[in-house]
């Protein structure tokens, strides 16, 4: 196939591999997806830097102490943390090819993700109702941009999760579906890592300001 015996006139035969050797399909997907996540990490770093620079400019408007409810944030964080471990369980059952259990754990993960989003949107609605809109101050603009971008990521993660549940239900735990589920696993855990930064920098340090 790809090996051409080039020379036999010398004493020893010389071999050249003309084509690159075959890679199994999807062999580099995980590395590629990891690099995508790292680029996403840079986006969040920029938003954190923006919040760090602007987060103290209240323009005589509400400050973190007037707006944040740490009990709600603690509940929110619990939801995301629980969704991380349940996604881990989904991966473990996927390894054992137990499709029913995988689907159930994925569904539970989705519900925790939905609870997280619901609590976050309730918080946003409450803040906007009190006049703390993104237009109010530089602090609020950077707050909504940073936390909103994270929420948007969770939303897309949920859309992806439902899509993969449908795919798995229709085609089973095929090689391709396993690969997709592993990518979503990295995405989901990565969002949890970003949330650690959010609850620390925005909420906890905001309350200490």
């Amino acid at each position, binding site marked *: 196939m790809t090996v051409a015996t080039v020379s036999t006139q010398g004493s020893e035969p010389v071999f050249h591999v003309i084509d690159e*050797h075959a890679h199994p399909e999807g062999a580099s997907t995980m590395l590629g997806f990891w690099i995508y996540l790292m680029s996403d990490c840079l986006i969040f770093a920029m938003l954190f830097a923006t919040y760090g620079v602007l987060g103290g400019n209240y323009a005589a408007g509400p400050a973190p102490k007037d707006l944040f409810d740490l009990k709600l944030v603690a509940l929110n964080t619990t939801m995301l943390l629980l969704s991380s471990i349940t996604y881990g369980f989904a991966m473990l059952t996927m390894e054992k090819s137990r499709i029913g259990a995988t689907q159930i754990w994925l569904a539970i993960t989705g519900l925790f993700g939905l609870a997280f989003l619901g609590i976050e949107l309730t918080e946003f609605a409450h803040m906007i109702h009190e006049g703390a809109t993104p237009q109010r101050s530089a602090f609020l603009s950077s707050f909504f941009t940073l936390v909103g971008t994270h929420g948007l990521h969770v939303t897309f993660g949920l859309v992806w999760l439902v899509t993969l549940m449908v795919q798995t239900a229709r085609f089973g735990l095929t090689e391709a579906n396993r690969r997709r589920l592993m990518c979503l696993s990295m995405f989901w855990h990565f969002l949890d890592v970003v949330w*650690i930064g959010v609850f620390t920098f925005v909420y906890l340090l905001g309350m200490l300001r």
Partner: protein
Amino acid sequence: MTTDSHALHSAAGDHGHHAHDGAAHGSLKTYLIGFGLSVILTAVPFWLVMIGAIADKAVTALIVLVLAAAQIVVHMVYFLHMNTRSENGWTMMALIFTVIMVVIALTGSLWVMHHLNVNMMPLHDMSQMP
């Protein structure tokens, strides 16, 4: 044909067999350890801030930041399965590169903007006005 290419494959330098290292999974035990650690590392900073256990706010902030850094490492190791071997070390390379970029961008922005704020503040010294 397939056996042929397989033989070539290993001859060409043991590639491909490591392809699944990057997708290494944890076991139930490592997931539970990671979860337990992150529950502690989340609960303690929330408790510190909500109760106001330490009077000095700067000390509290420092502890909260250290705990967050620790939790990020815990998530990386136990949930994202980061190690120096996965994908022949390339995921770790990408991570180190990103961390360097993030540190430069964050410290650079905060440092520059802080000094801009400090040095460019209007002095409101009307006696200097012509």
